[in-house]
């Protein structure tokens, strides 16, 4: 998968590395600000109230 992506990236090694880093950063940003906030309520590792 990653090898295939690497082959698809255009340009010299330098531009490839930079594009790859940008792609990783974009993926992390989408996870952090979009996906994780949606999933966070499902995880109840911090239930703090006392109730019946």
């Amino acid at each position, binding site marked *: *998968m*990653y*090898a295939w992506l690497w082959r698809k990236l255009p340009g010299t090694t330098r531009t490839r590395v930079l594009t790859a880093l940008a792609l990783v950063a974009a993926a*992390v940003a989408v*996870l*952090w600000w979009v996906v*994780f906030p949606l*999933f*966070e*309520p499902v*995880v*109840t*590792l*911090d*239930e*703090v*109230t*006392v*109730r*019946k």
Partner: protein
Amino acid sequence: MAIPGARIVQEYPDRMRAMLRAVGETSITAGLILMLFCAYLLWGTGAYTQQQQLLLQSELAADRAARERLSAVRPGEALAVLRIPALGRDYEYAIVEGVGTAHLKRGPGHYPDSALPGQVGNFVLSGHRTTYAAPFNEIDELEREDEIVVETREARYTYRVTSQDIVRPDEVDVLAPVPGKPGIRPVRAFITLTTCHPEYSAAERLIVYGVLKESEPREE
């Protein structure tokens, strides 16, 4: 007897290698995403709380000018400021009215049915222990006589810690007007802090009890 599948491996070694690599890469990616999610829970959620705390603080400042009555505070609004000097000089959180999920993401929350700050009865607060800025992360370190200061628009109430307990999540007796003794009429002002226990778990609740030591009106 040949090992099942061995023939396939021999005949299509490239395809097998590609498949195994795909499985491996997917697993590594999933692991990294899970680690990132843990980091988000511990640190990412705190950013939201800090931003909401600023809103609550400015709400308090505005209300103070308007001298709005404490009992008129509705769920989701700022109630008071909480200070625990034993947990740090700069330990300060705006308390939000209500203990719903959305409320507690903004800061420590006040049980709407419990007493108001300084009132006779039980002033009960819940706060996150590990996520959303984790305001109650270190309340297990509180010792007897440590001070818990609650500042409302009108007055500063200083409670002193009396004891700690670990209870089941459904032990609502700790919320009673006299903590742990439901049905008894209170004559003193108590404070009760609740959070999860152990850390990173929802199995039990950590409870810190206190009683009002002194109250002084705030000067204009």
